[in-house]
């Protein structure tokens, strides 16, 4: 009585194809829906036979609908794929026969009452707009990783036997690949387990290695929690922390930075692309200031890596953090770039892996996956970022236009290609998120109510928002699998959701 995989996948694939608005290749759908292309090919050829799909040839060829999605019902689709029957055989006249007949007719009724269009629009639709929190692993990345769980790579990269050696060769290839991408030297790339670890290593490692020069560290007021918390901990260890403010768009106040750097300043750490409001800092200028004053400069590029060009041979950057799970790689891998000659103390002591900076047996499959993910992203850099920017600006423009009392947070143009952050007056973010979730939309908020500390987002306060404005903020972050139809779906749902809660609010416009 279970619906077959064929039917479930068939419906999913069809919904995806309709969502793409036009012709779509098997490869694309297989990627979007994580269904193998061979299997899809089988399903689609059945749907073609039934007249539901047709093949289009040519460069942009692939499958397209051959029917009107407003009229074609799920019954036709299911019938084309399998014979779904809930009946006792004819000869049977048991007590339960009528039950099965009822189920059968109910089943048919339901299927014939839902059209393909409704399937796409229905509340079961799921639109993930929280890519800045984490991304799914690209199927191609996963495939690249799988062999590295194998026996032949079982060795510790530090072991001298065959398996250890082959593992360590793989790691060196990965290191080289990142060196190429960032225009750095392979020995300047350290693999870690998370951006949080990289950032902790920088703050604590630079602090303790350069104590003799001074105990003053500068960060921005819009850093990620892992930098803020590391800095707060260093304060308890006798270091002095200064925070540089940002303007209303989130750009660092460079004059203030210049004035704040002292003789005993040892590190400046500024986030590159902000995770909440998307503002991209001018690394060249900040790097120049730090370089002129002989202070180490670190940037957390977790969000910006593969979204903003980063040529380390041209920028005065001494340390840089990048992360795997923000770019369709697996969780549990990240990197830390450390320019040759930088004085830093390791956080993890032990077997001396990663040039002695980070002892720990390397997570080989994760490093391989991270590398593959970065390679894919860099190969599609221009095209994908241009696509995202177009989608981003389309959404921003339409949201601001259709929903009164809404305000964009962050810089309008110096902005991550995938980030949208908007405040809506007189509503609260957590309730918005929960309601959006009913429509299958995943987003995030800077509202105090949704944070574990019940404190509003420090980033939104830093750009001058009042607590009540940060309350009603939503972040939508787009990604590789976000389509125009996802965007249109959001534009359809969001105004209803905002209106619902504005009607509930004691404050009226």
């Amino acid at each position, binding site marked *: 009585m279970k619906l077959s995989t064929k039917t479930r996948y068939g419906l999913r694939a069809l919904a995806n194809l309709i969502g793409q608005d036009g012709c779509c290749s098997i490869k694309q759908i297989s990627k979007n829906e994580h269904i193998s292309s061979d299997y899809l090919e089988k399903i689609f050829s059945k749907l073609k036979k039934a007249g539901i799909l047709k093949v289009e040839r040519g460069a942009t060829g692939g499958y397209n609908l051959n029917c009107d999605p407003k009229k074609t019902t799920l019954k036709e689709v299911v019938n084309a794929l399998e014979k779904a029957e809930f009946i006792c055989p004819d000869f049977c006249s048991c007590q339960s026969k009528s039950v099965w007949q009822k189920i059968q007719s109910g089943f048919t009724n339901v299927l014939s009452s839902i059209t393909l269009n409704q399937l796409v629009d229905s509340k079961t639709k799921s639109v993930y707009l929280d890519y800045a929190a984490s991304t799914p692993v690209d199927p191609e990345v996963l495939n690249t990783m799988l062999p590295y769980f194998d026996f032949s790579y079982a060795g510790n990269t530090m072991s001298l036997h065959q398996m250890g050696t082959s593992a360590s060769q793989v790691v060196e290839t990965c290191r080289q690949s990142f060196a190429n991408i960032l225009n750095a030297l392979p020995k300047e790339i350290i693999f870690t387990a998370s951006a949080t670890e990289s950032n902790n290593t920088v703050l604590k490692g630079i602090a303790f290695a350069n104590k003799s020069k001074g105990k003053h560290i500068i960060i921005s007021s819009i850093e990620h929690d892992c930098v803020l918390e590391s800095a707060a901990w260093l304060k308890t260890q006798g270091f002095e922390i200064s925070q540089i403010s940002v303007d209303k768009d989130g750009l660092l106040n460079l004059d203030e930075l210049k004035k704040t750097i002292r003789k005993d300043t040892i590190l400046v750490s500024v986030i590159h692309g902000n995770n909440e409001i998307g503002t991209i800092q001018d690394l060249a200028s900040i790097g120049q200031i730090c370089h002129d004053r002989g202070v180490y400069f670190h940037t957390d590029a977790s969000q910006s890596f593969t979204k903003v060009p980063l040529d380390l041979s041209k920028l005065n950057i001494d340390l840089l953090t990048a992360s795997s799970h923000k770019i369709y790689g697996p969780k549990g891998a990240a990197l830390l770039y450390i320019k040759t000659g930088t004085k830093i103390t390791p956080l993890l002591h032990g077997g001396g892996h990663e040039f002695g900076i980070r002892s720990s047996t390397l997570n080989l499959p994760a490093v391989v996956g991270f590398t593959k993910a970065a390679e894919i992203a860099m190969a599609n850099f221009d095209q994908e970022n241009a696509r995202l920017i177009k989608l981003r600006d389309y959404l921003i423009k339409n949201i601001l236009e259709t929903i009164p009392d809404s305000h964009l947070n962050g810089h309008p143009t110096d902005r991550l290609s995938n980030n949208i952050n908007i405040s809506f007056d*007189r*509503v*609260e973010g*957590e*309730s918005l998120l*929960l*309601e959006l979730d*009913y429509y299958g939309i995943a987003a995030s908020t800077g*509202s*105090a*109510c*949704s944070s*574990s500390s*019940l404190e*509003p987002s420090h980033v939104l306060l830093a750009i001058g928002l009042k*607590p*009540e404005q940060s*309350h009603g903020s939503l972040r939508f972050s787009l990604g590789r699998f976000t389509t125009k139809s996802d965007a249109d779906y959001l534009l359809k749902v969001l105004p209803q959701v905002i209106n619902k809660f504005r*009607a*509930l*609010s*004691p*404050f009226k416009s």
Partner: protein
Amino acid sequence: MYTQKVLEHFRNPHNFGSMDNPDALGQVGNLACGDVMKLYLKIAKNKDGQDYIEDVKFETLGCAAAIATSSVVTDLAKNKTLTEALKIKNEDIIKALDDLPTIKIHCSLLAADALAEAIYSYFQKTNQPISKELEQLHQRIVTCQTRLKH
């Protein structure tokens, strides 16, 4: 993280909206995150001549828990005499919702406070005696709010 009951009240809140010419109004803001709840009461006399809550409406700016607790407190208060209604504690609200995450307990206080404030203002308006307990509660709520404004 929320129980089914919370989600039900959140999605389809009971008795929400404003009220024309309410007999009593309670407005409270919450210290922890600056959320606001407004509760309107229509008060009538029952056959024993006691004041009771004939109708109640709420408006809330806040999280799902704040909306759900507002909704449930209106349910609990409706048709109760004022004396009975004053006995509704935030534990009752939490129980009616099958539970609340610990971090959201303050939202249920918000709802209970709004009700108490509304009744307090009604007693004041109609020159009815105010118990020592209610007076203390009122003082606590007011100090919370003034602190919030700073």
